[in-house]
C-alpha cells in the first residue's frame, strides 16, 4: 500500500494563523455602515397566552427603526429542526411556553436605544398553569404545553424476551440514574449581522449549519431559498448549541423591515437563557447476566425532558435508545425512550446527543454486575464487547471497524503502566 502524503499527518490548522493574529472575523467583529442594533423582548413567564402587545411608544422612540411583532412575520412564523413547534415571534392570541420566548424584536441606532425602547412595549399575558416535571407532564390531565399533548416521541427497541430471561440470570442489577442540565458555554455568544443587497438577504452569523439557517429564514420571510444567503463567520465553538436558530431569523426580519444592516450580539446571560441545553434525563435500568458475566438481558426506560420545544429532542431520545446497551452484545432488550414537553428551558443538541447520559447508566450497571459475579470491570467489558459479525440491539449486523476490544486493550495497557495498577 502506498503511504499517504497528507492524510494521517498532523498538519497545522489552516485557520490557526488568523486566529492567533486576532484577525479572524467573528460575527461580533463585523461592522457595516449605517448599521442598526437588534434586541429582543422575551417573556418572563413560563406558560401563558399573549393577550395583547402594544409597540406604539417603542416605535416613537427616536432612533428606533423597527419594532416587529408576530403579526409582522410574513412567512410561517415557526422554526424547529425536527418539528416546527417554536414561534419566531409569539403572535397575539398565541401561546408562550417558556421563559425567553420572543414577543417582539427591535432595530435601533444604538444598543442603548434598543434596550430603552424594549421597556416601552406593553404586553398583557394571561397566565396558564405550567408543568415542569416530565413525569407529571406525562399524566392524564396535566397542563398541555402543545396541542398534540406532552408526549412528543416514544422510541422502542425490542428484541427477544427480557422478562423470561431475567428469571434465568445469575445476577440482575437495577438502578435509576438522573442527569442534570448542561450549558454549551462556548466562549463566543451568538451573534450575526444581516443586510439586504438587491433582493437578496445576506446573513453573516456563527452557526453549525448555514444551509439549515437559509431554509428557516426563507420559510419565515416567505421568500425563495435563492433569495437568502447565509455566510458562516468564524465560529467560536458550537457543541450542538449553534444548530438551532438564534439571531438568524430575527436579523433577517429586521434587515428586511429597515432596509439597513442590522447586527445582534447576545450577552452571556441572553445566550444562557435563550438557547438550548443538554437534556436532563432519567433512566431506569435493569440488567442481567449469567454466572460467567455474559450479558443476557437489559430493560430500560428513558425519559428526556425537552422543555418547551422539540428542537432535537426526538433525535436525542432515539439516540439514547439505540445506544442504551453500550457497545455490548445483549441478546434480549426492551428499551423505551420518551421525549416530553414541559415549560422548562428548551433542550436540544449537545455533543453526545443523549449518549453520555445512557453511558453513565450502562457503565454503572456493568460494574455492578461484575461485582456481583466476582469478575473485574475490565473482564465483564472485554467479554461482552461487540465484535465483527455480531448484532446490535437494533439487529444491525456489524461487519467491520468494530474497535471496542482494541480500545479496551489499549486503554488497559496504558493505564496499568501509568497508574501502576492491575485493571
Amino acid at each position, binding site marked *: 500500500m502506498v503511504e499517504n502524503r497528507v492524510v494521517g499527518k498532523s498538519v497545522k490548522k489552516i485557520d*490557526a*494563523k488568523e486566529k492567533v*493574529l486576532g484577525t479572524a472575523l467573528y460575527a461580533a*467583529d463585523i*461592522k457595516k455602515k449605517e448599521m442598526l442594533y437588534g434586541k429582543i423582548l422575551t417573556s418572563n413567564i413560563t406558560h401563558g397566552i399573549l393577550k395583547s402587545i402594544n409597540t406604539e411608544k417603542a416605535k416613537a422612540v427616536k432612533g428606533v427603526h423597527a419594532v416587529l411583532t408576530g403579526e409582522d412575520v410574513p412567512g410561517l412564523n415557526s422554526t424547529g429542526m425536527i418539528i416546527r413547534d417554536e414561534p419566531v415571534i409569539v403572535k397575539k392570541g398565541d401561546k408562550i411556553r417558556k421563559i425567553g420566548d420572543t414577543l417582539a424584536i427591535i432595530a435601533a441606532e444604538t444598543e442603548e436605544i434598543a434596550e430603552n425602547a424594549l421597556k416601552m412595549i406593553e404586553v398583557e399575558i394571561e397566565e396558564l398553569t405550567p408543568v415542569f416535571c416530565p413525569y407529571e407532564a406525562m399524566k392524564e390531565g396535566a397542563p398541555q404545553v402543545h396541542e398534540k399533548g406532552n408526549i412528543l416521541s416514544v422510541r422502542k427497541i425490542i428484541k427477544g424476551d427480557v422478562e423470561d430471561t431475567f428469571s434465568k440470570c445469575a445476577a440482575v442489577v437495577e438502578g435509576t440514574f438522573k442527569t442534570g442540565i448542561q450549558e454549551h458555554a462556548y466562549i463566543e455568544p451568538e451573534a450575526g449581522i444581516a443586510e439586504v443587497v438587491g433582493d437578496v438577504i445576506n446573513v453573516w452569523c456563527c452557526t453549525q449549519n448555514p444551509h439549515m439557517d437559509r431554509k428557516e429564514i426563507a420559510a419565515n420571510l416567505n421568500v425563495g431559498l435563492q433569495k437568502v444567503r447565509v455566510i458562516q463567520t*468564524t465560529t467560536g*465553538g458550537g457543541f450542538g448549541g449553534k444548530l438551532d436558530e438564534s439571531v438568524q431569523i430575527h436579523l433577517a426580519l429586521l434587515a428586511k423591515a429597515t432596509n439597513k444592516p442590522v447586527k445582534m450580539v447576545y*450577552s*452571556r446571560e441572553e445566550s444562557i437563557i435563550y438557547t438550548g441545553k443538554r437534556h436532563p434525563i432519567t433512566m431506569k435500568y435493569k440488567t442481567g447476566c449469567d454466572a460467567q458475566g455474559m450479558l443476557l438481558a437489559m430493560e430500560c426506560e428513558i425519559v428526556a425532558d425537552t422543555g418547551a420545544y422539540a428542537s432535537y429532542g426526538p433525535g436525542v431520545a432515539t439516540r439514547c435508545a439505540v445506544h442504551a446497551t453500550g457497545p455490548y452484545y445483549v441478546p434480549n432488550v426492551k428499551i423505551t425512550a420518551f421525549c416530553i414537553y414541559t415549560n422548562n428551558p428548551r433542550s436540544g443538541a449537545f455533543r453526545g446527543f443523549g449518549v453520555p447520559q445512557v453511558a453513565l447508566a450502562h457503565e454503572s450497571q456493568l460494574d455492578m454486575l461484575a461485582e456481583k459475579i466476582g469478575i473485574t470491570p475490565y473482564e465483564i467489558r472485554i467479554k461482552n464487547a461487540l465484535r465483527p459479525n455480531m448484532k446490535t440491539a437494533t439487529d444491525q449486523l456489524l461487519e467491520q471497524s468494530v474497535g471496542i476490544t482494541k480500545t479496551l486493550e489499549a486503554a488497559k495497557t496504558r493505564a496499568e503502566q501509568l497508574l501502576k495498577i492491575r485493571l
Partner: protein
Amino acid sequence: MNTINISFKLNGKDMKMEIKPQLLLLDMLREELGLTGTKNGCGEGDCGACTVLFDGKPICSCLALAVNADGHEITTVEGLGSEEKLDPLQQAFIDEGAVQCGFCTPGMLLSAKALLNKNNDPSDAEIKRAISGNLCRCTGYTKIVKAIKKAAKMKEV
C-alpha cells in the same frame, strides 16, 4: 455630553482619544479603534476573552474603564506579532494545535505573554495558574499549556 481626553500607548504607539467617561476599555478597543482581536465572551470578568496587557499585566478589559488607560501602556493581540513576524507564542500555538475555535486565543496569548515576560522557564503548574482566568471550552487546555512551554524555549522567530 462631556468627554475626556486621554493619551496612552497602544501596541507601542502613542495614542490620543476623546472619550466618554463611562466608556469601557474593551469597547474603546473594539468599537472606537476597530481592534476586534480582543473578544467579549461575557462582559463580566468571568471568561478572560477580553484580556489585554495593562503596563504588562493581564487585565479584563471588559471591567476596566477606558479613562484608566490614560498615561499607561496597553497591549492587545494586534500588538503581539504580525503576519510577517509572529510572536513565539503565536507560532507555538499554531504548531502545537492549541487553537480550535480561537475565541479564547487572543486573551490566552496575552496572559501567557505576561507570564513569559517575568518567567522564561515556567513549570506546568505555573502556566496553568497564569491562564486560569482564561476559559477555553474547546481544547481542554492541554495543548495550550504545551504551546506556552514550547514558546518559553523558543527564540524570537
